[in-house]
């Protein structure tokens, strides 16, 4: 008689007890599966959110010198003018999409009768791609013509657009920035953005850098952005730009204080570590639940062994070796746990399906991501289940195998 068929007969006899144990395993499987899947999707969402600032983005800003250089004293302010963006773009091809940005500067903007104080930035066209600021349908980002002609056009972060226009279409409307009229040419498509160096992009008003320079009279940009063409040689690209800017502005290329660098790759690594930590945490909670279920399984297996002591005696009398008995109860424990596990996985995929139906436009929920039952999760959960089943089955099985056949036959 196979372990499975024996278990099924036992199930009929002991319906309530076995069903409750099975439910425990199902519940624990659902917890570990859903938690593991959520951990995975939150990790993915965090990484995606990190990319919202720009995938592989590096930002270089000027600073104050800490060493004398070329006859100049220390404590000299080094700033980069707008043209440096173009110089790097043209001179250092390994720095992709290099561009300069001005701002932010907090100014009054108005439309119709509404007036607000918001962050204004001046950017070059490459900024859109670099920072994943993509226009919604019917609009566009700042372009080269806007730059060349110092046009008064604005690209609005989606939150600004909501505040200013509500549900009204914004593209084509004229807003006033410090009472200067600007035509709205585009609105940003909503994106998940985890980090920023002043404020998130949805809360910004973007205007052409050339217009910004003229309007506000800034001599130096706030930063130069680029993305290394080849991530593998990112360090070399960084060094090239460092040398280039130092030579251009006459300061010590190794002066640590001038060179203010912000590298999203480093942040991405940190976020990745947080994501991994969280997944481990979720998995451990799930695994603990599963261990509790394992204790339940061990408990019912002990009862099973106790109840079937006479049968164990009979089997031994007709020639069952201790190993046969051990194997039978191990397999029964395994069958019980794996049956619960299979049901649990089935139910988990349903729970995850429901979770995916939650609308995640909401900022907080966005970090839930879209949890899915991946093959990796199934494999991990199955191996943990098997381990727990073996552990839960082993001690009852060992007790069964050590039954004295004479005693067992007398038992009744």
């Amino acid at each position, binding site marked *: *008689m196979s372990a499975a068929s024996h278990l099924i*007969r036992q199930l009929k006899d002991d319906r309530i007890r076995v069903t409750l144990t099975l439910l425990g395993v199902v519940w624990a499987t659902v917890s570990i599966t859903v938690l593991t899947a959520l951990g995975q999707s939150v990790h993915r969402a965090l990484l995606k959110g990190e990319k919202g600032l720009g995938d592989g983005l590096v930002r270089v800003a000027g600073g104050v010198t800490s060493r004398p250089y070329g006859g100049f004293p220390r404590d000299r302010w080094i700033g980069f003018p707008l043209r440096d963006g173009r110089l790097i773009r043209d001179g250092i091809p390994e720095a992709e999409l290099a561009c300069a940005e001005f701002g932010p500067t907090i100014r009054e903007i108005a439309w119709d009768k509404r007036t607000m104080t918001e962050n204004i930035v001046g950017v070059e066209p490459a900024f859109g791609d670099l920072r994943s600021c993509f226009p919604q349908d019917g609009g566009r980002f700042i372009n080269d013509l806007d730059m060349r002609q110092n046009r008064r056009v604005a690209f609005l972060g989606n939150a600004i657009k909501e505040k200013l226009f509500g549900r009204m279409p914004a593209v084509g409307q004229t807003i006033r920035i410090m009472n200067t009229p600007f035509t709205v040419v585009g609105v940003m498509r909503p994106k998940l953005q985890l980090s920023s160096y002043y404020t998130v992009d949805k809360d910004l008003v973007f205007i052409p850098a050339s217009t910004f320079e003229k309007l506000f009279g800034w001599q130096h940009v706030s930063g130069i952005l680029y993305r290394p063409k080849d991530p593998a040689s990112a360090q070399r690209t960084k060094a090239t730009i460092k040398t280039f800017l130092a030579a251009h502005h006459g300061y010590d290329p190794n002066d640590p204080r001038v060179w203010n660098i912000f590298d999203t790759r480093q942040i991405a690594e940190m976020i990745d570590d947080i994501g991994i930590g969280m997944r481990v945490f979720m998995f451990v909670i799930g695994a603990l639940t599963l261990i509790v279920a394992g204790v339940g399984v061990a408990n019912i297996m002990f009862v099973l062994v106790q109840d079937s002591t006479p049968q164990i005696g009979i089997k*031994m009398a007709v020639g*069952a070796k201790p190993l046969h008995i051990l194997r039978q109860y191990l397999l029964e424990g395994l069958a019980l746990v794996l049956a619960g596990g299979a049901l649990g996985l089935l139910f988990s995929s349903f729970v995850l399906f429901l979770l995916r139906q939650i609308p995640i436009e909401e900022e907080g929920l966005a970090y839930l991501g879209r949890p899915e039952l991946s093959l990796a999760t199934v494999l991990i959960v199955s191996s943990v289940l098997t381990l727990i089943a073996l552990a839960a089955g082993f001690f009852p099985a060992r007790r069964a195998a050590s039954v004295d056949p004479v005693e067992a036959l007398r038992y009744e």
Partner: protein
Amino acid sequence: MILSDVTKVYPMGDTQVEALRGVNLQIKSREFIAVLGPSGSGKSTIMHILGCLDTPTSGTYHLDGAAIQGLNPNELAEIRNRKIGFVFQSFHLLPRATACENVELPMVFAGINATDRKACAERVLDQVGLKERTRHLPNELSGGERQRVAIARALVNRPSILLADEPTGNLDSRSGAEILALFEELHTEGRTVILVTHDEMIASRAQRVIRILDGRIGQGSSDNHGRKE
């Protein structure tokens, strides 16, 4: 089967119970033996030791020339599986298994495949007159039928020794007589049959009667050999 100076002591609470006190016994192949004694005399203990379900506390037991004492549980299980068939007073069938599955059991542990097992079990059930009852569960069978299933199970691995502990104890007289006739037939076919009983009438059917009292082989153990042959 040779028992030399065998003792068996069971711990029972704080005291030690001596079930066997120096038993010497020799059973030849193809004998039909009755072990006769009142309850508590130690006759079941003799059967457990002869059947390798238990080992002596002291003394030696040789089966087919090989020493049994000192064998590990796996080796004992192997001997029980191959050489010995048990029949018990209360049948000891697996309650949730059909007649056929019960008979298949010893073959499971002998490592025989499912198809052969089933064919063999059905053949042996046919031999004991239960051809039509193979799919029934024990609680759907009469006492006599259950004991036949137990005998079929004892026979299925073709053991040379058949050990029966009060095999007719739970049966009405007619079924009991049929079962005894079956044991006689199995003996005639060439098996060693050892019947443990407290009933003089049943014991008288054997070739030789071994009387046991208080853990010792008693006076008056008789040889019915002449009468039976």
